[in-house]
């Protein structure tokens, strides 16, 4: 079934506007997607009709908000096919989810000399928390490299795994290279050695039909703002038996059972990991984003995004001096590139004035920049609300910008 893109765009009215007098071309959804209108409507309803602090209140509005908040937990559980609702922990974003696991798994299971395996293409959010933990627990970090075409060299995993390896943290989709990593294969191998796996799902949760049970991930972390939902909300999925064994991350209201100065006992899952007043309106509104995605034909969406990506990739390849990073076959809907001899930031500045919203710079992935020895890249990312016409306009503008900047300077 073909998607009606123009109808979809109506759910994101922000897209229909001009910036600097030019029609907006929003190619930055991998950084943050635009919010679907129903999310806003839900927040409005909460603010105008029923809002109260949840869980501990004993009044009408608090009850209503609590019921909706907890219903979102069930929706998310179904959305990623978790087994239990207690496995859904609300966080403030993918980054916090990774920090939670690095801390709580680290404090509970990582000892001096233990090893953690990351990949060379991780987002900083899936590197730094592990470094901080490794420093504290005196653990060692090892890295799976990727080839110049962006392919993760999973075959190297065997030689990296030792009896000391406790956890592997890997992005399902790289936010720079757009590569889809073989997480199922990695998880199977890890599990055969009793090693746990955290999957950074920030880029994949909306670009696949996620099934955490099928994938068999131990942890899966993602952000609402990359899936048409509000900011400040994220989800950490974790297997119940693991979360149960982990020390809490933050302390405060809600996550305790009994507090005494001598000894405090903790609440059961999921509350044990949800200290403080949560983002009540945010989570409830996020439920609308999940509903929207549920109602979307996921296969059609993915195939549409893929064809936009292929089309743009083909058009980019025709440009003299273009260098595309991440060209291996398992590709998702982001493309990072440079034009030989032209600074990425110059292009970004001119494209911005042409109405194109894209990312430039180090893309929160220094190791990827270092791999290619570049100071930055340009990145376009596509969502279901983008069109082929936008790709065409972008290519025209890019060519114009290259010309303004004196053309690609190619060293023979």
């Amino acid at each position, binding site marked *: 079934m073909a998607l009606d893109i123009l109808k979809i765009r109506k759910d994101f009215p922000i897209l229909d506007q001009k910036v600097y007098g030019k029609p907006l071309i929003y190619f930055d959804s991998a950084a943050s997607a635009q919010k679907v209108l129903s999310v806003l409507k839900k927040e409005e309803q909460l603010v105008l009709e029923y809002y109260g602090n949840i869980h501990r209140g004993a009044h009408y509005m608090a009850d209503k908000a609590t019921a909706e908040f907890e219903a979102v937990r069930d929706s998310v559980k179904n959305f990623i096919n978790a087994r239990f609702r207690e496995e859904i922990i609300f966080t403030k974003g993918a980054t916090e989810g990774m920090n939670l696991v690095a801390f709580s798994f680290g404090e509970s299971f990582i000892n001096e000399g233990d090893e953690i395996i990351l990949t060379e293409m991780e987002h900083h959010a899936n590197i730094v928390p592990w470094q901080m933990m490794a420093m504290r627990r005196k653990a060692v970090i090892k890295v799976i490299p990727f080839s110049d075409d962006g392919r993760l060299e999973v075959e190297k995993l065997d030689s990296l795994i030792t009896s000391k390896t406790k956890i592997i943290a890997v992005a399902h989709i790289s936010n720079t290279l757009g590569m889809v990593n073989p997480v199922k294969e990695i998880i199977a191998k890890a599990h055969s050695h009793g090693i746990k796996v955290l999957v950074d799902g920030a880029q994949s949760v909306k670009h696949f039909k996620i099934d955490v049970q099928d994938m068999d991930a131990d942890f899966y972390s993602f952000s609402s703002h990359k899936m048409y939902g509000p900011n400040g909300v994220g989800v950490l999925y974790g297997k119940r038996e693991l979360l149960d064994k982990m020390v809490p991350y933050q302390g405060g209201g809600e996550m305790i059972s009994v507090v005494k100065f001598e000894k405090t006992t903790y609440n059961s899952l999921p509350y044990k990991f949800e200290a403080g007043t949560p983002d009540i309106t945010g989570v409830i509104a996020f439920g609308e984003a999940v509903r929207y995605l549920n109602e979307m034909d996921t296969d059609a969406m993915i195939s549409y995004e893929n064809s936009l990506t292929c089309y743009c990739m083909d058009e980019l390849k025709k440009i003299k001096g273009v260098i595309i990073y991440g060209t291996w076959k398992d590709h998702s809907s982001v493309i990072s590139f440079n034009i030989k001899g032209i600074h990425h*930031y110059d292009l970004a500045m*001119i494209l911005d004035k042409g109405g194109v919203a894209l990312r430039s710079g180090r893309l929160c992935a220094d190791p990827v920049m270092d791999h290619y020895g570049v100071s930055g890249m340009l990145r376009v990312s596509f969502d279901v609300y983008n069109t082929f016409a936008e790709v065409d306009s972008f290519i025209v503008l890019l060519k114009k910008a290259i010309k*303004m900047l004196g053309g690609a300077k190619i060293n023979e």
Partner: protein
Amino acid sequence: MTIEEVQLEIIDEFSFYDDWMDKYGYLIELGNDPESLNPDEKKEKYLIDGCQSRVWLIPEYKDGLISFRGESDAIIVKGLVALLLRVLSNRSPSEIIDADLHFIDDLGLKQNLSPTRSNGLVSMIKQMRLYAVAYKELEEAGTKN
């Protein structure tokens, strides 16, 4: 010319361009000016890092005036650097310290100077003022002795 006069001159120059692309074209032209640093001058100690682009700035203090030379790896930023040098180079420390830099704003290029636009320009201006403060203290110490 005073700092103010140079700023007005630049604003006047840009007034020919009412299209963004033309303004940027002019900045690129300025950025293409060969007068820039030698590769071996681009030392760590002169580097002002930004996550988008990098700027190098070399000060020289002579006869009560500070002159600056600078460059960026991004050409449009280099154009902006050229403008800033035109306004602030060969000035006394006090002039630099007291300068009211409004031209960037007037040209509609303000966003390039927002503290969170990490292209190095804001840090560069801050650095220029820091140099000015340092040289001024040197001057005052000198007059005291």
